């Protein structure tokens, strides 16, 4: 858990990118501190998103915070969770900043990160019966092209494996 002095020092160093990587257990306390401390007053959470670092086997949730009262920022608050679906959960910061509500739902929908304490955690962009988490790096989309006249790259590779969706001449020509 970073101490109050460590946080202040890092943020006042005026670095072009100030970012804080915290553990899941400390996230809520750090967020409340950042919001309520009179010298920091980060009352505005601008952007919440998740990044899938498949090589480091973690999903990182990033919160970008600004201050409307003191007009400074940004600070990137980052927290990591393991990629496996059962263990992939972090505390929700919606009780601290209401603006995180929809963006955390989107991170849940597209990455599978569960936010504990979120008032209404359900899918937002995909339909409810959908089971996959499409923005993960290991997601394989359904092969529903049915007709791709100029296949190249990934489409061509998958067509060669699955066949039947590209003209035969394209398969031969691009060998």
């Amino acid at each position, binding site marked *: 858990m970073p101490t109050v002095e460590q946080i202040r020092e890092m943020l006042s160093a005026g670095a072009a990118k100030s970012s804080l990587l915290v553990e899941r257990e400390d996230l809520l306390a750090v967020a409340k501190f950042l919001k309520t401390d009179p010298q920091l007053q980060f009352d505005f959470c*601008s952007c919440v998103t998740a*990044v*899938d670092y498949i090589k480091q086997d973690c999903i990182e949730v990033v919160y*970008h915070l600004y201050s*409307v009262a003191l007009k400074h920022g940004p600070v990137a608050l980052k927290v990591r969770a393991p990629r496996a679906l059962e263990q992939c959960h972090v505390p929700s910061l919606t009780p601290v900043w*209401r603006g995180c509500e*929809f963006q955390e739902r989107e991170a849940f929908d597209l990455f599978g990160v569960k936010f504990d304490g979120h008032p209404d955690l359900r899918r937002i962009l995909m339909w409810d019966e959908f089971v996959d988490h*499409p923005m993960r790096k290991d997601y394989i989309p359904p092969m529903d092209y049915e007709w791709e006249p100029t296949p190249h790259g990934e489409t061509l590779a998958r067509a060669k494996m699955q066949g039947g969706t590209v003209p035969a001449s394209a398969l031969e020509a691009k060998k």
Partner: protein
Amino acid sequence: MSATGIIETQTLEVSLGPQHPSTHGVFRMDVVLDGEYVVKLKPVMGYLHRNHEQIAEKIAWIANMPYTDRLDYFCSMTNNWAYALAVEKMAGLKVPERAEYIRVIMAELTRLLNHSCAIGFLLSDCGAWFTPVLYALRERERILDFFETVSGARMMCNYMRFGGVRVDLDDQSLAMARDIVARWPAFLDEFEKLMTENEVLIARTQRVGILPRELAINASITGPMARASGVEYDIRKVDKYGVYDRFDFRVPVGEAGDTFDRYMIRILEMREAVKILEQALRDIPAGPFIAPEAKLRNFKVPAGDGYGRIEAPKGELGFYLVSEGGAKPYRYHVRPPSFINLTILEDMCLGQKVADTVIILGSVDIVLGEVDR
């Protein structure tokens, strides 16, 4: 039991959308009504989820520029600028002065066309079926002609590049822009004369959909909607990106936070945008229009992450980019203002009549391409 306690009533669940004359796109609201009054409202989105972020991870950095056009499809120039700004921040590219002035001109013209059409659509929701939209579209066509002369396309301009813009503005285009700016105050006067003191508009929008200031800040509301609630925060003044610190303009801030304030803020912002445009068109220097060291092919961004944002006409448009040093983004995320401004739609609509729901949604000014990406 109803409010009078005499008649036993039931609530009614209605789905407004996704095809509805007033939902500004494919957006659905699940509304639970007690008579005419809204008891619960759940927005449902995702009907235009076009996988922009996933596609962006598969193609080169510059190839994402046309896709940013299609985010907020009304304002393609500001979307391009936000993306170019985020990448330039990460790559450390310096943009020449003339390009910065051109970017400001394009962004403020976009602000003009967005706000006039947003007001037009808001009034369509109030019942002034299409007449204000026709006035707004007449002026928008002039600006689209200018965009077409400069960039080749009316709407999806794909005009900004990392380090500058794609082509230069010649004298004929500048004359066109000056002509548009010269006509705009007269158009605004005509527009305002028709609408601002119109008693139907005042009756339908004052004290409707009030958003308190503290809730606006906590719910990450940005743009004209936040300023109407009294939040004095304009990214052009706070971050001072581009050359905005050279222009003298005010930021209108509202008091009541209701729909009428949001309408008035947009009118006032249009007047301020005209001021910025006059100054920019007067002071634009000669020079290169793109940074000489900016490469377009095989452009690689150094490893790391970065967040760049601008004051788009609808709010704060930000791009969070993660790069591994390669030719394609590792993670590309759009922070859409319309999506986040919908967070408190339910709060604003509770206790209002169902007809006001549509007006409140119109005053939020959403574009589904941005909401769903």
